[in-house]
């Protein structure tokens, strides 16, 4: 619905403008590093690189391989906390 999409756009804009988006990003990055998600994915990257060859690996190769795994591997606690913060923001700022 266009209204929804308008709403969404507005909220996203607000998120960015208020700096909340950046804050959430940093929070997520820190949490993922802390829980070892990053190192796990790096190991996966190594496998991909060895598979594809050091010289010829492209960003696309990595992205395609890594992103779905990454999404799955995020721990539940981190996910919950982030969602909570987002909801709080929406509750506060959604008109």
């Amino acid at each position: 619905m266009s209204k929804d999409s308008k709403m969404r756009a507005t909220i996203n804009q607000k998120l960015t403008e208020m700096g909340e988006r950046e804050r959430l990003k940093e929070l997520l990055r820190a949490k993922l590093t802390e829980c070892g998600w990053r190192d796990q994915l790096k190991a996966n990257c190594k496998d991909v690189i060895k598979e594809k060859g050091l010289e010829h690996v492209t960003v696309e190769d990595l992205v395609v391989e890594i992103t779905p795994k990454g999404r799955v591997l995020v721990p539940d606690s981190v996910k919950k906390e982030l969602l909570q913060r987002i909801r709080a923001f929406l509750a506060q700022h959604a008109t």
Partner: protein
Amino acid sequence: MKMEDMSLLGLDNTKLEALAQDIYSDLVEDSCLGLCFEVHRAVKQGYFFLDDTDQESMKDFEIVDQPGVDIFGQVYNQWKNKECVCPNCNRSIAASRFAPHLEKCLGMGRNSSRIANRRIASSNNVNNKSESDQEDNDDVNDNDWSYGSEKKAKKRKSDKNPNSPRRSKSLKHKNGELSNSVNADPYKYNYNTGINYETLGPDELRSLLTTQCGVISEHTKKMCTRSSLPDADTMVESDCYDASDGQVLMSRLQWDGSSDISPSDSASSKASTNNSDSKKPKKKKTSLGLNSTGGGGGSGSGGGSTGGGGGSGGGSSSQSSLVGLANRKKKPKLPVPPAPSIYDNLN
């Protein structure tokens, strides 16, 4: 109402939730992409595999999990059974004890009592010049890495204190010697260990105790050689002594100090009171020399007689006994008992 609110808001919870989920997944994807870019850059720049060790080295340092060996593959008690032969004494020594043994054996370590051995050796042999030179070198080694040690080493022997107790020990083992008993120091202790009042005759005792304190310490078993100083209080009282008291004291000196203290004591004290009643107090200063030195001598005699029983307690109480005796003269009505009181304490 809620529905109205929601409609007014234009969003419902499900939509909000969906929105939240979308935002979340965007964030996660951002992180993943960030990681991918990082890794790709590292690969292209050539530093991605830098922190890894190559396989060969990995095998070298692999953790070992065998029995009898630590994780590095080293054996713990590898040198336990091995024995070395000492070149000096030709004994076979265990490897772990070899170094300390060499230290002692060659006389070169810090704790090898090299100086003591050297002294023994030099006292046995005639003093050669070459020998003393070598010994000085040893002294240089003794001080850890200091260049000024040579001066210190040569000074050492002359530093022996001529007045140290060890040196004078041999001089002072004289029992009952009176020549060295008169000391300038009033509080210096005699080194006589064997002084025994029972063995000395009355004359010796008299002369000894008139000049010195004579109290035998309980702890060191030594006779106090403190020269009796004229004490103002005791001097006055000492004037009251006469020959009879001197006799009483002398009898006490010869008395053995057996366990039956009180009966004999009361007898002697009764004797003394009888004597004192019969004879008038004469203010003499001569009588047996118990005059100005009476304070010291009398207390000395009291101490001497109680030497068999308990010397240290006797020392202080003898003074009081002296005063008690004197008081008896001045105040004849005062009952006898102060003398027995010493012995009561002992009992």
